[in-house]
């Protein structure tokens, strides 16, 4: 029994220490999301995207999604733009978002004028935080992108593990049971009231 207790304590502790950077990111970025109006002040007159360059390019787009993705990757590589990206054709326009925590790029190709245009965003610490918060998934491939997605999974599973081991450790402290039940009951009652009235 002592071994289980120690195992749960150490799992709870070491997972927490490992994931401190992600806990910080999710906490601080949520301040930005939850108080968005406060963070908009000062940015209202700034353009969101600023032109970087424009060039004439002849670009053939395959109709299938895999072919489109491969062609866009080549196009980005040729123009020195590396990183995870999403591409979508809308009529005579191809929109490509190149992800990067610090310097995301928006690239558009106009099939009528054959112009390829790249734009960047001015640096804003709050945007770096929200990009870190919002980045998920294994779609992009590549070891580093997959490592980030793995840490997102690890953080989610760790949160469930903190809850499970935390409940176990609370139950072992018999002197705290009454207040613990009140805390759990208060949280459950609050969320039930909210979800039925929102």
């Amino acid at each position, binding site marked *: 029994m002592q071994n289980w207790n120690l195992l749960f304590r*150490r799992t709870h*502790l*070491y997972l*927490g*220490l*490992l*994931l*401190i*950077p*992600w*806990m*910080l990111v*999710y*906490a*601080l970025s*949520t301040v930005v*999301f*939850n*108080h*968005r*109006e406060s963070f908009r002040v000062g940015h209202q007159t700034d353009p969101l995207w600023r032109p970087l360059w424009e060039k004439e390019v002849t670009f053939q787009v395959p109709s299938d999604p895999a072919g489109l993705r491969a062609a866009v990757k080549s196009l980005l590589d040729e123009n020195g733009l590396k*990183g*995870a990206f999403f591409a979508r054709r809308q009529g005579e326009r191809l929109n490509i978002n190149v*992800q*990067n*925590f610090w310097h995301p790029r928006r690239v558009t190709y106009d099939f009528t004028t054959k112009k390829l245009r790249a734009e960047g965003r001015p640096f804003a610490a709050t945007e770096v935080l929200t990009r*870190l918060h919002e980045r*998920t*998934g*294994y*779609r992009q491939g590549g070891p*580093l992108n997959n490592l*980030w*997605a793995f*840490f*997102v*999974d690890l*953080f*989610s*599973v760790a*949160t*469930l593990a*903190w*809850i499970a081991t*935390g*409940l176990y450790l*609370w139950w072992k402290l018999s002197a*705290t049971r009454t207040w*613990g039940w009140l*805390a*759990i009951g*208060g*949280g*459950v009652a*609050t*969320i039930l009231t*909210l*979800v039925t*009235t*929102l």
Partner: protein
Amino acid sequence: MNPTPAKLIRRTHMYLALFLTPWMVIYALSGLVLNHQETVRGWYGGKFNDFEKIEERPYAAAFSADADARMIGGQVLADLGLAGAFNVQGTPNQPKLVITRNAAFTAHRVTYFRTENRLLIEKLALNAPMTVNRLHFRHGYEQPFIPAKIWGFMVDLAIVGLLFWIVSGIWMWWEIKPARTTGAIFVLIGFGAFSLLLATI
């Protein structure tokens, strides 16, 4: 007897976590859904985020010339018995206003065809992954409804909880001398991996 500062920190760490357990469960489950969106969408055969038509009905209401889109949206929802947090797309001068009523479990989309005096009412198909995502994405104090504002406060409390768990967790780790070395290794791995990813992707 007054508790010692050490005991106070430990108990606050624990009771805050016990209180916030439902929110942490939502954020954890939603994190998994978002990180595996294609797989989860596949479970629902592509109908993951679809609105289903509930009804169409005539709606004859007279709005003053200075009525803004939010005021019109709020009145339409109140007349349908759907009052609560919502967003509106469109302007009062346009022939069509799209009102999205965001409840906890699902959402209604009401399209108001002003020139035709007609409403189209649709509802988001209910499913567990979308519900946890909707609760995860809900934040802020902009909506003028008390439950929505309390939810915004709970999000702030979750932020305080996360920051307090970090600080108190580091303090509690340092108090356990046999755990210092192993703990330091985990801290270094975490910061090392995070720094690498922050600098490269």
